[in-house]
């Protein structure tokens, strides 16, 4: 494959995101001989710190350094990237909240193919990349062909490639700022104002040892009572999946996942939770996971250590009674 491969690097406070090294692994799977260039935007000393960290992993680090990018606005950056990226390049972007903002439109502006949320690559033949995606929150997978001959923007699911920690490159930093700024600062129709920090809840679930976590399988707000009873019997804190917060049954600070909290308990009990990657992505530190779900094929059983296939509405009250009996 003669096309150059780029990896967009997300970073915060001078440190590259975990996905940075996953993008190298993804690029190598795409093309074992690829020399992968990192592309990174930001401002000043924080940006420089990340660049220095990246040169041991990437053959080139393309940086765009501008005060206006101190907080990166995808609408601005997208138009800058179009000025510096070759038309037939392969651009890998992490499939998370920033990548989802940046990438679809970038593909159109580069007139490149768009392949969203890839979890694996299985080779390139006649200009067609064979990739794996998941559908229906991971209940089924698909093989897809993506015609990359005129370039492609591909978002890669965080956590689906194992980070390449070999640090085998001795790359150089290439300052692309002037080229990216040619014609002035673009993207003025969307202006970044501020970041509003999440409200702090009454319980900090990131510090909990034992979490009883409830999902849409609980079906009705009134049924939450049995979750409260179980958690009390176990001495656990209560967390939940996103639909429970969307329905305003529990506060946002109890949501586990990529757009909620990252938790590190010893024991995590997932009740009526399907196991979407955005949920499981918030469970760190290899806890002992118990899943109870009435669907034996629910993806959560892949993440769990112990599974029970049952209706939680029947099972939980019995479990709570037994725990209470045991404790006398």
């Amino acid at each position, binding site marked *: 494959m003669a096309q150059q491969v780029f990896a967009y690097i997300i970073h915060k406070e001078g440190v590259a995101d975990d996905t940075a090294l996953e993008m190298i692994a993804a690029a190598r799977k795409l093309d074992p001989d690829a020399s992968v260039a990192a592309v990174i935007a930001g401002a000043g000393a924080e940006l420089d710190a990340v660049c220095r960290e990246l040169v041991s992993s990437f053959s080139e680090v393309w940086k765009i350094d501008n005060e206006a990018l101190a907080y990166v606005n995808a609408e601005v950056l997208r138009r800058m990237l179009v000025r510096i990226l070759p038309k037939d390049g392969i651009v890998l972007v992490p499939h998370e909240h920033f990548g989802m903002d940046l990438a679809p439109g970038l593909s159109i502006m580069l007139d490149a193919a768009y392949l*969203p949320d890839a979890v694996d690559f299985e080779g390139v033949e006649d200009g067609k990349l064979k990739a794996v995606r998941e559908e229906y929150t991971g209940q089924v997978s698909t093989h897809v062909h*993506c*015609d990359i001959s005129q370039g492609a923007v591909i978002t890669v699911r965080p956590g689906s490639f194992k980070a390449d920690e070999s640090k085998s490159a001795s790359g150089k930093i290439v300052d692309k700022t002037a080229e990216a700024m040619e014609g002035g600062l673009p993207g003025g*129709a*969307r202006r970044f104002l501020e970041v509003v920090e999440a409200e702090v809840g009454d319980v900090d679930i990131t510090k909990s040892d034992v979490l009883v976590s409830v999902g849409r399988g609980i079906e009705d707000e009134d049924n939450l009572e049995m979750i409260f009873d179980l958690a009390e019997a176990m001495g656990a804190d209560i967390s939940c999946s996103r639909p429970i917060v969307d329905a305003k049954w529990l506060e946002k600070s109890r949501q586990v996942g990529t757009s*909620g909290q990252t938790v590190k308990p010893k024991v995590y009990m997932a009740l009526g939770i399907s196991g979407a990657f955005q949920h499981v992505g918030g469970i760190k530190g290899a806890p*002992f996971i118990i899943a109870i779900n009435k669907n034996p094929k629910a993806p959560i059983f892949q993440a769990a250590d112990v599974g029970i296939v049952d209706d939680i509405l029947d099972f939980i009250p019995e479990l709570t009674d037994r725990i209470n009996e045991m404790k006398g």
Partner: protein
Amino acid sequence: MEILVCIKRAPDTSENEIEVNRDGTDIERDDLVYSVNEWDNYAVEEAIQIRDKMGGSVTVVTVGDEDDEEVIRREMAMGADHGILLSDETFKGSDGRGISAILKAEVEKKNYDLILTGAQADDGAGQVGGILAAMLDWPYASLVNFIDVIDDKKIKVGREIAGGNQEMHEIDLPCVLSIQTGINEPRYVGIRGIRKVASLEIPVHTAGDLGIAPESVGESGARTKRLDYFVPELGEGAEILEGSTEEIIDKLLEFLKAKGGIK
């Protein structure tokens, strides 16, 4: 304010087990319960609330076939003023770019101020909103969980980012936003509401009506193509506890005690 909301009919994943059919060409669709994509309900609710405050109208649109009319009616029962079905043989096999190109042609027929999509579809990818915005050369914001209309030229939006934090932007109209769940509480649609719209005529726009070159959409215009469906080789996965409920609870309690799950 003239608002267009893009909607998609999708199998309800919380109601269904999704399984691959025998030859791996599709999912087993016979017993599936369909509804409007979860995210799109929030988008329609938001549009209705903006209209009720600012005036104007809400139009819902989907690219599909006659089966998809039901989701247009459902969202009209919710309160959308108009519904449009974009349907043509040549649209079949469209990828995200194709679907967006078809929607773009419809957008250009009228003067919309605001286009809303869902952040992603239940089987999907989170691509249509961003692609459509770039095709129109309109500003875009994804994962929007807050909208405040400032005036008829600009709005303030909140984007959901990691850790439950929110990124605020001011954005010029017209623009495209992809809506995240939780932005509002979509209203309930009862049988009576559905009945009221049951016999409404839903206009159908074809490739010809929209001036779309057939080779630019559908299978021929697609740069991505789904080859098959499969169930991945599963890892070891969980140890599934079996037996009577009583026996299962015995085993579970042992695990809980061993791992420090009961205090």
